[in-house]
């Protein structure tokens, strides 16, 4: 084209052809459906063996391979080029283009051959394991897409019995623990030494009972269970002449070790956090709650990829109705893949349209343990370090758990401080804007004159000023999170300082506002639950709008509606604002944190099976002391 340009022999059509959009089918090799309509349309066309449409980019992900396709594509491209010219000459008329498209749609797509995988999966559902090793090997190859799928290893060996038994092991490289596997193979290949092994089913029992040292062994005849086991890091042993498979637990994939909490840091109390491994997380909880009453029920969610979801509770405490409800909701989720507990939270929460979160997510095992001991239910999702606790109240979401570890005076002080930060985090800018716009009489004269004097040089209306500063803060917040590594914290501080300072010096905002926005930001960071902090972040903008339109009256409209909406919330049958709205027996730990020896009962809103936590006198030594003195 460059050459053409230099030669000066370029004609308009060619130029237009250069600049008009052409699908490069050569590199993509396939095209995607873009909208729902297109998908439906193409679906119909597919059914009717209709031609695919170039512009609508019909096609399947799995394309025909081979040179003939290339050739065909090449033809299509030529055709598309011509069409492009026509389209342009037609003035980009949609109708014309559509006609062109229809006419052009010469390329017909075969419906993709059902891949071996899908049919194999169909087999796997009710497939039984055969006694023949070769037959099993063939099925496995079909199931896992061998030999293309390089993750799955099939290891042939013979068991060292007196007539040796041919067998093979199946496992996925990287998911298993090599040391354990070495042990297994050693035991079978070197030390077995058993004479005259029985055939058929009994062979499995022999291997399982006498030969194999694995700590968890499951015997199954179903390919479905075999697949689930191997996919989850197990090693499967197939034995010659035996219709069953041995699944040995050899999980040993790479994972993050137990670390300090990242988002819920505390000074006092345990410093462990959950990790991405389900079993580690259940173990962390069980380590804290050493009780046979602690149940872990495993459910699976996901139709395509199964994700384990564990529901943990104390059998003798948690209300059975609550446990059933939790399980009912989790089992009722129809989704192909559950990636994280955050997604599960959105599936099971009661009020998805309200801003307030009604499920507590935490990464601290000690917090979850303290909730389970109150009779609540913990939901662990495999692969997520955040554990959900239900039911959850707003007061609970404003706790960190740390207040209880500290002496009660300090805990109570922190709680009241947090109440203040909670209110400030969404009300402060709205109050400021309504003061500055509507209620000049409310400020002390000297403060008002100071604000007015500073505002004198600012060229923006106050609402713009506030919004600018608020958004700047939000930018810093978001950027501070995304900036890699150590720079994150630095960016936050530097950004805030420099931005504020420069904005004031440039007379874009008044200094009082910088202070105010900074305080609001701090207040918002002081809210311990990230989701709740998010709630206040959004409410803040609503209050700014209300304050700017109707002043304090607007603020009170907002407060009234917010309280109404929030008090209407429920989390798994428990009102969100309990114990203040509705009033229930408050217990010793809501805002004021009474001394620990007053924590005598569990919160009654959960309706635990046993409401007493401690007897009236928890410090029996006091009594004894008095007795001795007498």
């Amino acid at each position, binding site marked *: 084209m460059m050459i053409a340009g230099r030669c000066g022999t370029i004609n308009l059509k060619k130029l237009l052809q250069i600049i008009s959009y052409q699908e490069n089918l050569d590199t993509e090799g396939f095209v995607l459906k873009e909208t729902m309509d297109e998908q439906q349309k193409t679906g119909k066309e597919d059914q009717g063996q209709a031609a695919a449409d170039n512009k609508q980019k019909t096609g399947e992900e799995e394309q025909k391979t081979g040179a003939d396709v290339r050739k065909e594509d090449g033809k299509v491209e030529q055709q598309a080029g011509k069409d492009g010219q026509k389209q342009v000459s037609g003035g980009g008329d949609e109708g014309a283009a559509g006609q062109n498209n229809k006419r052009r749609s010469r390329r017909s797509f075969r419906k993709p051959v059902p891949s071996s995988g899908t049919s194999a999966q169909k087999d796997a559902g009710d497939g039984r394991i055969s006694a023949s090793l070769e037959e099993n090997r063939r099925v496995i190859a079909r199931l896992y897409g061998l030999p293309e799928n390089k993750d799955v290893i099939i290891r042939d060996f013979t068991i060292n019995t007196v007539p040796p038994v041919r067998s093979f092991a199946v496992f996925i490289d990287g998911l298993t623990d090599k040391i354990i596997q070495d042990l297994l193979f050693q035991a079978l290949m070197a030390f077995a030494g058993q004479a005259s092994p029985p055939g058929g089913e009994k062979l499995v029992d022999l291997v399982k009972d006498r030969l194999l040292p694995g700590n968890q062994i499951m015997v199954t005849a179903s390919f479905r269970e075999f697949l689930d086991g191997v996919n989850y890091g197990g090693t499967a042993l197939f034995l010659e002449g035996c219709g069953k498979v041995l699944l040995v637990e050899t999980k040993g994939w790479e994972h993050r070790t137990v670390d300090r909490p990242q988002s819920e840091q505390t000074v006092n109390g345990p410093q462990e956090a959950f990790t991405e491994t389900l079993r580690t997380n259940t173990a962390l909880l069980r380590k804290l709650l050493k009780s046979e009453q602690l149940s872990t029920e495993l459910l699976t969610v996901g139709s395509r990829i199964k994700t384990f979801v564990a529901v943990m509770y104390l059998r003798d405490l948690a209300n059975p109705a609550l446990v059933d409800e939790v399980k009912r909701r989790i089992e009722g989720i129809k989704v192909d893949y559950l990636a994280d507990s955050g997604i599960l939270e959105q599936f099971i929460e009661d009020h998805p349209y309200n801003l307030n979160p009604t499920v507590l997510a935490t990464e601290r095992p000690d917090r979850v343990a303290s909730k389970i001991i109150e009779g609540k239910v913990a939901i662990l999702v495999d692969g997520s370090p955040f554990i959900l606790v239900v039911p959850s109240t707003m007061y609970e979401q404003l706790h960190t758990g740390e207040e209880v570890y500290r002496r009660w005076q300090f805990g109570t002080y922190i709680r009241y401080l947090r109440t203040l930060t909670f209110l400030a985090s969404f009300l402060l800018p709205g109050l400021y804007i309504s003061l500055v716009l509507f209620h000049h009489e409310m400020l002390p004269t000297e403060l008002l004159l100071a604000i007015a004097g500073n505002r004198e040089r600012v060229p923006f209306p106050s609402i713009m000023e506030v919004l600018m500063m608020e958004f700047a803060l939000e930018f810093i917040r978001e950027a501070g999170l995304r900036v890699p590594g150590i720079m994150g914290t630095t960016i936050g501080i530097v950004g805030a300082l420099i931005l504020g300072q420069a904005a004031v010096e440039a007379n874009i905002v008044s200094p009082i506002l910088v202070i105010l926005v900074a305080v609001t930001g701090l207040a918002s960071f002081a809210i311990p639950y990230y989701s709740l902090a998010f709630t206040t972040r959004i409410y803040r903008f609503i209050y700014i709008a209300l304050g700017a339109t109707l002043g304090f009256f607007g603020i009170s409209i907002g407060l*009234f509606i917010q309280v109404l909406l929030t008090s209407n919330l429920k989390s798994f049958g428990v009102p969100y*604002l309990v114990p203040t709205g509705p009033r229930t027996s408050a217990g010793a730990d809501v805002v004021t944190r009474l001394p620990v020896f007053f924590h005598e009962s569990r919160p009654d809103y959960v309706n635990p099976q046993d409401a007493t936590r401690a007897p009236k006198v928890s410090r029996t030594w006091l009594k004894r002391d008095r007795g001795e003195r007498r």
Partner: protein
Amino acid sequence: MIREGSFGPAEAVILLAISNIARFFLPYPRSLAEIGGTAAWLTLPGGLVIALAGVYVMSVILNKYPDKTIIEITEEVFGPVLGTVFNLVTFSFFLAVGALFTREFAEAMIITALPETPVSVVTVAFLAMGLAGAYLGIEALARTSRLSYLYVLGGIALLLLAMVPQCDLDNLFPLLGRGPLQIFGNGSLSTAAVTEIILAAVLVQAMGGAGKFRSIGFRAMLIAYGLGVALMVTLSMTVHYQSLAEFTLPFYTLARQIYLGRFFQRVEAVFVIIWSVAGALKIALTLYGATVSLTRLLKLPDYRPLLWPLGLVMFIISLLPPDMPASGRLDLIILRPFALIPNYLIPVLVLVFYWLRGRSRRAGS
């Protein structure tokens, strides 16, 4: 038949008490000062006695039909025609209270905080709050009042405390003000004109049944009248009774008078928040009361579809009075006497009819 939700006695007491004291944020204390002079506060204990008697009579009636509200009871006792007429009176009372309070609160808001805002906007805002509250139901309203009562009552307490330096006990003398006849006759009848007895009787099933009605009613009335007395005493002590009778919004005037040094003054806008929340609660409650009483009267399964039309009706009625003094006069001249009918007259009539019918039945058998 109507899903109302339910709430505990603690919430019910607070709900009724806040609803009752909402009138003190309006020009109402002014009229009391006019009636009672220096002894304006003495009109309240008399009103309390009447109100307690009213609660008692109502509880007697409700206990006769433990699973019904006053609407169904009236209809059952008086028959479909007369009963419907009486129930329509109750319904229109709720509607009138709601509309007038909406207007008065809107006017108060304009006078105190938003001098340049059109009245329709403030009215719409109040009604929107009321509609939201009534839509979410009495349970949400009860919880909201329970959550906000600390701030409402705490704000009032703070106001009264802040006025202590300016209080002058001598302003309460002469003790009997305009004379016992005025205070305990005219004044007590005026203060006894509450909305809450009939409201509580309509909500009785949501409050946990007729059995709890009496204690809830008594406690709510005691709290409300106690606060009212405290407010009126403080008002009388700080503002001369002649000036008090002049002010449009005595409560606001009181808040403006706070002066605790160079910094702690000018706090009245904070009270704007408190009393607009109280006003919104009151409007939501009366709207809810009107809707539910009409629903029960028409025996409909749900009250929510009626909410929007009634809200609109309330809005239109609230814009009918030509000016603020007129709405104040309507409150005094029509609404206060009107309040006595559903709160006291109809219950007494119901009781009398019930006895008469019982006697005739006994005589018949």
